[in-house]
């Protein structure tokens, strides 16, 4: 069974992203939404953590939340896929369970 994890808080505010990475298994998907999208940006203090996690997890980021925050898709970490809400829905169908890290 594979899980779609959602992380909605910034890694600078809360440890939700780090905890999600620590407690998820190979083959899962991690979707960054709301303030969580800052975790997808390159050149931050958390980028290395995310890049390392990408070996075991597929990372996605919600495009509308990036745009709302003035974060350019160009500056998203290489390999993180930008999706919209319909992409979010698709991810929930492709994975068996959804787990929210608030």
């Amino acid at each position, binding site marked *: 069974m*594979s899980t779609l994890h959602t992380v909605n808080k910034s890694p600078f505010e809360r440890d939700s992203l780090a905890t999600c990475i620590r407690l998820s298994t190979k083959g899962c998907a991690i979707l960054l939404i709301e303030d969580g999208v800052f975790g997808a940006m390159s050149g931050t203090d958390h980028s290395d953590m995310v890049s390392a996690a990408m070996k075991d997890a597929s990372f996605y980021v919600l495009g509308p939340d990036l745009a709302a925050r003035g974060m350019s898709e160009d500056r998203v970490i290489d390999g993180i896929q930008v999706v919209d809400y319909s992409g979010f829905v698709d991810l929930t169908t492709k994975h068996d*369970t959804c787990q929210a890290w608030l």
Partner: protein
Amino acid sequence: MSTKKFMFLNRKAPYGTVYALESLEVVLIGAAFEQDVSLAFVGDGVYQITKGQSTDGIGMKNFSPTFKALGDYEITKLYVEKESLEARGLTLDDLMELTWEDEDDDWAEKPSIRLVSSEELAAVFDEQDVVLSF
């Protein structure tokens, strides 16, 4: 009704916010539905089950004794992440003694708290059908 694996994910400390209390309220109601229920205490969630909570000074209700009733409701799987405890300078001794009585073993009293590594807990999460996060 089919049986699903329900996981209640607790990552917040008690009293500073309402999530710990209201999460427990769902667990108690959920017990009546005869599903395969587990609770996980991760991060500050481990503080929900520490011993010696005394809330008179803050004027709030101490709801920690309610965890002791979980065994009677057949909720016997309380996973505590070792790393979260250690990061907070806590050990199993700092947590309440939560037990259940195994009717298949002559009603022997057994611990409900299962201290697990991050890897072990990640594997447990993967088995779940429904995860409720608070």
